[in-house]
């Protein structure tokens, strides 16, 4: 007897978002990245189309990281103090689809870097790479509201992804994105309703649905990640069942989240090789989020990205 697979019929799909603008579209990128578009749950291609495979990005910091464990810092050699070189290495050597530049140096509690200084870093990174760029603020509301508009301007026309817009602080970033032809990341504290609220607020300010990417602050494996999984999965299910305000693609951060876990970096012989542990912790977190429905993952360690690339290929 032949077994008939039950096929779920979905009424809608994740919206499609294109990052980066080539010269044809008024930018200087050499390639673009397309997110979303899936009309099925992750990797269930027998149920529906998933035209764009998950996108794997790498994170670059504008400030040399201190205290990175050796296994994490080693692959980068001497580029960690030079964002442009770091970004170029990620693309050329480590096969990153795009770069996420985090402007942590702008944080008043760190270097309190000026908006112009941040914009200069953005310019340099853009010049060093041909792939699209994510420009991510430092997380301090007031400072980001000063920094992002200036950075947005120097990158005008490049169709960058600006982050992050939050429920009570989204206007400045949305206005910059609209003015300079960028896209916006809507952030939520692991809450499906707040995510939807951010998206509603952004669209009501005029940001089109195909210029919004959703970001839930998740954590990593071992730290309550089951809840994150269910939130991402429910978001994808909402998109597939016609909730357009939850229909945008999702981005997840695994690098900085996984390496926060002590299991990733603590010397403990019983836990196995320190060389591999952090990488596996990061890759396992990425795998989990991809299975839950995220469309783009941002890595720290190139090996974790490599593992994930292999996994995606294997599952697709």
């Amino acid at each position, binding site marked *: 007897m032949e077994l008939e697979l039950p096929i779920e019929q979905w009424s809608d799909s994740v919206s499609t978002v294109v990052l980066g603008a080539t010269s044809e579209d008024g930018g200087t990128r050499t390639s673009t990245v397309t997110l979303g578009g899936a009309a099925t749950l992750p990797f269930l291609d027998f149920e529906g189309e998933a035209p764009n495979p998950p996108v794997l990005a790498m994170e670059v910091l504008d400030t040399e990281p201190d205290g990175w464990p050796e296994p994490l810092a080693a692959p980068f050699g001497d580029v960690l103090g030079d964002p442009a070189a770091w970004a170029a290495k990620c693309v050329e050597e480590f096969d990153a689809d795009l770069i996420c530049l985090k402007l942590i140096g702008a944080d008043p509690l760190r270097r309190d870097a000026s908006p112009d200084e941040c914009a200069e870093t953005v310019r340099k990174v853009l010049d060093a790479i041909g792939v699209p760029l994510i420009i991510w603020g430092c997380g301090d509301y007031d400072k980001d509201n000063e920094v992002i508009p200036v950075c947005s301007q120097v990158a005008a026309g490049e169709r960058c992804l600006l982050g992050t817009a939050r*429920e009570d602080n989204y*206007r400045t970033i949305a206005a910059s994105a609209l003015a300079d032809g960028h896209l916006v990341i809507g952030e939520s504290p692991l809450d*499906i*309703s707040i995510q*939807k609220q951010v998206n*509603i607020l952004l669209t*009501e*300010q005029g940001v089109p649905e195909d210029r919004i990417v959703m970001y839930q602050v998740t954590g990593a494996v071992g730290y309550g990640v089951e809840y994150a999984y269910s939130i991402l999965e429910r978001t994808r299910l909402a998109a597939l069942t016609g909730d357009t*305000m939850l229909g945008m693609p999702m981005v997840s951060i695994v690098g900085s989240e996984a390496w926060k876990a002590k299991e990733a970096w603590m010397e403990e012989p019983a836990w196995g090789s320190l060389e591999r542990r952090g990488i596996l912790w990061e890759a396992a977190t990425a795998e989990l989020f991809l299975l839950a429905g995220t469309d783009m993952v941002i890595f720290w360690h190139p090996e974790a990205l490599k593992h994930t690339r292999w996994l995606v290929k294997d599952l697709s």
Partner: protein
Amino acid sequence: MKQVRVVFEPDGVVVEGQAGELLLDLALTAGLPLLSECGGQGTCGSCRVQVQSGRVRFLNRSGLEEQITTPQEVLACQTAAAGDLVVHVPPETRLCPPDERITGYMGPEAAAFLRPGRTGFPLGERIQVQLSPPSFDDPTPDWERLLEGLRQARYGRRNITANLDVLREIPPQLRALDFSVSATLVDEGCHHRLIALGQPEQEEALGLAVDIGTSNVKAELVQLRTGRVLAGASQLNAQVRYGEDVISRIIWAQEHEGGADELQDAVTSTVNSLIEELLQETGASQHQIIAVSCAGNATMISLRLGIPADAIRRAPHIAPLGLPPVISAGLLGLQVHPQAAVSCLPAINGYVGGDITGGILATGLFEADSLTLLIDVGTNGEIVIGSKDWMVCCSCSAGPAFEGVGIECGLPARPGAIESLAYDPDQDRTTVRTIGDEPPVGLCGNGLVETLASLLDAGVIDRAGNLVPDFPSPRMREANGEPQFVLLWKEDTATAKDLVLRQGEIDNLLRAKAAVFAAVSTLLEELGLDIAQIDRLYLAGAFGSHLDVRTAVEIGLLPDLPAERVTVAGNTALVGAYITLLSSEAREQVSRLARATTYVDLSTSSHFMEEFVAAQMLPHTDLERFPSIV
């Protein structure tokens, strides 16, 4: 039997009845109880109404039918409908004058308890007894003689008791008054207690209906013989300074030595100050008040009685008592007759108190044929869903924002409170309507609802309630690092200060409305019901009857139901206290319905928190739930 349709003006209430029904009864069915001092004998003239048109039959004119063409004054107890009618009820004939700022809606099921013959016994009453003097042939002792007189006059086989100090007065009083006395008795449930003996034709016995709210205390002074409301008053609960909500007050009482006493004193002083205000207004004396009926949540009642309420704040949130026995007023420091009976409406649970059982009673939910929803928005929000067959309730912490507490420009509904507000962004102008058309002092619950809707409509706030910083008006400004919006410039207010709404206050209002909406949605979900199945919604609590239901739906305070299914019911807790003050049948009914209502604890529901977050938008994150607005 012929069907008739009677319109009662000026309320415009329409009621269907049968030809032959008395206007007095039809008015009750309409939820408009009339004065009827003689109990429908046609002798006192207190139930006078004006028939404006239609066909009636006069009982006292040999049953003749008459077509009324020019308005005619009639006695409602002696006039039956013979066809469709329009009847005008003058304010002096009404049992409860419609002072909506204090009291609320009374459904026909509730008004029925006031029908002569159905009240049973008021909580307290004064009756005249004429005893035959003792003789050698009738050597019955004085107390038994008095008991016999009372039983024959009114109490039948019911138990009657008395305190020692009253027993001591009996022999001299009976003789001094020649065995013709007035006796004052209170109903303690299992028996009646004689609390005073005096001259016949003593002054009127009065009762007090009180709603002890977490934020506001409201009271009505009532003539017990007739049920007539003589005056009403409202004051801020003096306990507010110990914490805005019940939990913080319980904690305060625990953490401070003598804290519980201090809280008890605070609410006692509030009630006493209300009593003083009412007595002053009516010229009555405190000894006339012989019965007090209190509605309030379990914490308020416990603190009022000085009973430790700590268990309410700890899971599983147990109230010290559901239905307190009748207590003597003197023990509670109330400035009324020292032996007046104090009765409380029963609580269902630690978080659903006598204010809600009062609401179930007042709205008639307990006898509803179809699914009915009662939402009481106070500092706590309580929800009841049900009908005559079953009732389920829950509570949520809404915060006192809509009661005007914690909002600088907020105030209870009183003259000068803004009931209606519209901001016009093109003219940069605000138009307001205040209670009593007095210069604006601040915003009451209705005004806050309309303000939110108007600011959203004008683009002053976004759907998440954030003030839009670049909104082009000098009214948008910042103070102490917090954005605020000037609703009225100081030239236009009675306080000579700018009337502003701050970001934090808007957030509080959003949280309050979200908690209420989330509680309704969660309870519906737990019951497997859809909001569309709700046939009638009563919104009780902080809102006056002029509240525009559509506006309340627009901001997502109320679920999206057609306006004709919604009744803004006002302070139904006080109505419950009023009815139970006057009727032992109502007191029995309310204690039955308290036991019959099932409590659902939302703190164990995983769904509530999610609903709460989703409801923190105007009107809601999921617009699909508001089809009439999209």
